[in-house]
């Protein structure tokens, strides 16, 4: 798992209900350590690029995974993704879109912008919990993350 103090997951979610349910699902699957929450796209970008209220955060400790909602105030999810992929400091961070919709347009744009995975939140909470368990296990345990040097230096 992640080192102490390092952020393992950046959860970008504007809806409090969704936020609580998602955190609950993560907690129940023992994946809730070192979670950073951003409530809109701008905050997410501030965190990733260490600016705004995150000035002073070290760029070297980028999250191992970004869970990204699409419909967000200020800057929407796809725009966050675009900026991440355009910037060398964030280009290699795994991003999973976790959203209500599976509109073809969103799917297409998401993958074109280089998202690593696209998951529609099921209405059934049991299924949602299972989905969160699987994706946490996969991206934080099974999957080999890019080397830290590459994340920072590239």
């Amino acid at each position, binding site marked *: 798992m992640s080192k102490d103090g390092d952020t393992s997951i950046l959860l970008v979610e504007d*809806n409090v*209900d*969704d936020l609580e*349910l998602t955190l*609950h699902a993560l907690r129940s699957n023992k994946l809730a350590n070192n979670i950073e929450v951003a409530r809109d796209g701008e905050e997410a970008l501030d965190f990733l690029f260490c600016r705004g209220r995150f000035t002073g955060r070290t760029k070297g400790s980028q999250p191992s995974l970004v869970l990204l909602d*699409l*419909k967000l105030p200020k800057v929407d999810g796809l725009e966050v993704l675009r900026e991440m992929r355009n910037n060398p400091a964030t280009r290699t961070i795994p991003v999973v879109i976790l*959203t*209500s*919709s*599976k*509109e*073809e*347009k969103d799917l297409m744009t998401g993958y074109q912008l280089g998202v690593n995975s696209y998951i529609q*939140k*099921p*209405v*059934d*909470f*049991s299924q*949602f919990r299972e989905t969160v368990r699987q994706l946490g296990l996969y991206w934080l345990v099974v999957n080999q993350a890019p080397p830290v040097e590459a994340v920072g230096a590239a």
Partner: protein
Amino acid sequence: MSWGLNGKITAGFAVALAILGASAYISYQSTGQLIETSRQLSHTQQVLESLEMVLVTMDDAETGQRGYLLTGKESYLEPYEAARKRLSSVFANLDELTTGDSESQRNLGMLSRLVKQKQQELVATIAMKRANKTDEASWLVMSDLGKKEMDDIRDLINRIETREKARMAERNVAWEASSRRTTQVVVLAVGIAFVFLLAAILALNSEASERARAEGDLRKNRARTKMLTDSITDYAILMLDSEGRVLSWSPGATKILGYKQEEMVGQSFSRFFPPDDVTAGVPQKELEKVLVNGRAEAEGWRVRKDGSRFWANSVMVAIRDDQGQLHGFSKVMRDITERRAALEEIESLNRDLAQRASELEAANKELEAFTYSVSHDLRAPLRHIDGFSQLLVDEYGPKLPEDVRRYLDRIQNGARQMGQLVDELLNLARIGRKEIRLQVTGLDSVVEQVVSDLKTELNGRKVDWKIASLPYVECDATLLKQVFVNLLSNAVKYTRPRNPAVIEVGSVQKNGTPAVFVRDNGVGFSMKYADKLFGVFQRLHRAEDFEGTGIGLATVQRIIQKHGGRIWAEAELDKGATFYFTLGNRAN
């Protein structure tokens, strides 16, 4: 053909005339020669007669001399005297006749000398008799001198006569030859002239009949043209002179414009233009355009005799001969008021249609935005309802009364069902908007995939699958998979009371097109409700018997219709159902 028929005829006549003239000249020449020859002949005749006269006269003179010598009577000397007088006139005549003929003159000179010698002998003997020297006279007579002289005269005259006769014969021969030649030439000339004349006359004749035929054709053509223009009553057909004045006016023109031919002939064609157009020079401009381009098409209002207006379409053409000389114009005009109205109607409809289309497009955009936000925002509260209900059960379940747990279960069921409904409705809307992507697809593999997915959800039920070989078709494979998912899961659902369930997939020919069918031995339905089968939210079974949203078959129909195909069902209550579909002309 630079000569032309007329030129040739003229030439024929000219040649014939020239030949005839030449032959007349030759005849004239020949006749002159004939006259000359006959004059010469009579000339020769006179010479011969005169010579004969000399001989006779000399004989008479000698006879008179002899009589006197024998009788001594002076009366015997009378013939002699007469002969002597006659001789001088005969010689004068001969001299005149032979003027220019040197040989004859020479011969005549000789004759004259001989005659004078003889006369001298006669004079001498007569003088001797008178002097009574009768013996001497007789001696002179007896000396044969007189006879010899007479013989010489006769010989000479004979010679001259022979020569004259020979010359006459010679002239005759020459004249005959020449007149024969003349005759031949004249006959030949007349023959040739006759041939030329004949040819010219024949040509003249054929030209005349040609002209008569042409005139006949022209008359027939005119009659036909008139019949044609007269029979066309939906078009005004008119001829204008080069100034735009009416030369001819068809019955169609009378029908369309109301003016009779006698009213319009000589009038300017601007008469049936609206006054404003005439002031603005519209008719004149039309004429100018025709003069420049050779043709002009015009559309506009024209005025009938009764003042009413109609919308006309007209074509005007300049009529020029081979040399480009303008002879006037032909004008054909139609009343297209109705067509124009129809066109305007169509244009107005098109405008409406375009308006509707843009409205529809706007509505579509709105719908798209609507479904987008539905897909994002409508599902979220359902997730929350289900999620927090679940947390309630998870965290306080054991403490909760049985009823509360059952209510929570109902709440969760409702939320999930609505989630499914939203998903399916969104899917249906998406299919409506989506462009289908056709590719040749083997339906076998699609069905195989769907069936293998369904087998995992059978929960131990016994199902007898009878899957026949299916054709390759041109279709959107993703959408066709949805069709089979819906039809086959329906079959699985509605055969739940059957053991074993029998589900059959195959293809048949329906009205010449291949149709795919999915058949089951399930609960079926009454054909009474067959028309409701494919409507959105239409269900033929109660939800507690067979769960469902009522969107599945509507989605299937939408997909089939998008492929240009047709879907229908045959069923019987409690006996099972068969769903057929075709893929229209795109089926392969």
